[in-house]
């Protein structure tokens, strides 16, 4: 927690605290931390405004009702928490293109936006297909010794490391 060391803490300390936070979530709200399912709920909430009938008849949304629940609030919380930390450590900066992307690909905004959009769409499909993401399967599910979560977590990184090698180069 050396301030001169920039905005960041030791990854081990952060990991240990996230581990405790997972326990707190189970203890106080009977929920395992996971981010991805909330995006499906948010999509349902948005589409509901335009076509309520479709959402009511859709099999997925029958099982996963689109409502602002614990998980959707968790997403808003993550945005706020990261913002607070970024502001107090002087690390908040509005940027369109990440530095490493500029270095590896290009400083232009459009290629980054299109790739982020495509990557986001693929993540949305993949996370619902697998039933979770890096937090839900990777941390919460693996710590609960769920075979499905362990298989998903390994697959996330196999897919991501190979794609990164092809797309960004070695």
């Amino acid at each position, binding site marked *: 927690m050396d301030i001169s060391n920039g905005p960041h803490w030791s990854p081990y300390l952060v990991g240990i605290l996230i581990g405790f936070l997972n326990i707190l979530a189970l203890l106080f*709200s009977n929920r395992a931390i996971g981010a991805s399912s909330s995006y499906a709920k948010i999509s349902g909430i948005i589409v509901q405004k335009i076509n309520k009938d479709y959402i009511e008849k859709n099999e997925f949304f029958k099982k996963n009702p689109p409502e602002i629940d614990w998980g959707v609030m968790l997403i808003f919380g993550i945005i706020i928490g990261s913002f607070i930390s*970024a502001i107090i450590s002087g690390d908040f900066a509005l940027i369109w293109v990440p530095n490493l992307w500029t270095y590896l690909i290009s400083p232009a905004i459009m290629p980054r936006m299109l790739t982020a959009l495509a990557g986001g769409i693929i993540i*949305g499909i993949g996370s619902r297909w697998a039933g979770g993401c890096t937090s839900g399967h990777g941390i919460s599910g693996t710590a*609960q010794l769920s075979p499905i979560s362990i298989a998903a977590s390994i697959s996330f990184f196999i897919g991501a490391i190979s794609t990164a090698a092809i797309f960004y180069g070695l």
Partner: protein
Amino acid sequence: MKFNHNKNIQRFLGLMIGIAFGFLLHKGGVTKFDIIVSQLRLKDFTVLQIILSSIIVAMLGISYLYPHKIISLKAKRGSLQNAVIGGLIFGVGFALLGLCPGTIAGSVGNGSLDSLFAGLTGIIIGSFLFAVFYKKLRILGILKEDKYSGKSLFDKIEGNPFKYTLPAALILTALLIVIEILLV
């Protein structure tokens, strides 16, 4: 606990846990594309260090709390097949976006406009597309549930779970030490 069933208290707890989670994700540096893509290119190991240390703590905590019936488990439903196919699809998007569903929310808080206007929008669109094709994927048998659905190995362990989770924690710690010595 009784207040679990009150929707507004649940929302408030979700918000509070989210704020703490987002704060920690930023402190860990993983609200940044640069750190995550460097991990995926095996040039930096911050992401793995955070994930493995959090698994160790949460797993050991569960090993004590679950047998004492203080918490219940929330193992996800599905199948190994869904996990592997969906996981590989996820991985492709994870590398292109350079962030995952939790860390992208953190990167929005950190000021990334590509995350806000493109990445986040993409995840919402992708999740909706999945919902649209969900019924068809189930009818075709591509999405299914197997014997691992909703299961945790904690329920297979007879007696004290620490006899398995303590050695597992030591192996993960050894892995972190090896990464620290050889790669960092």
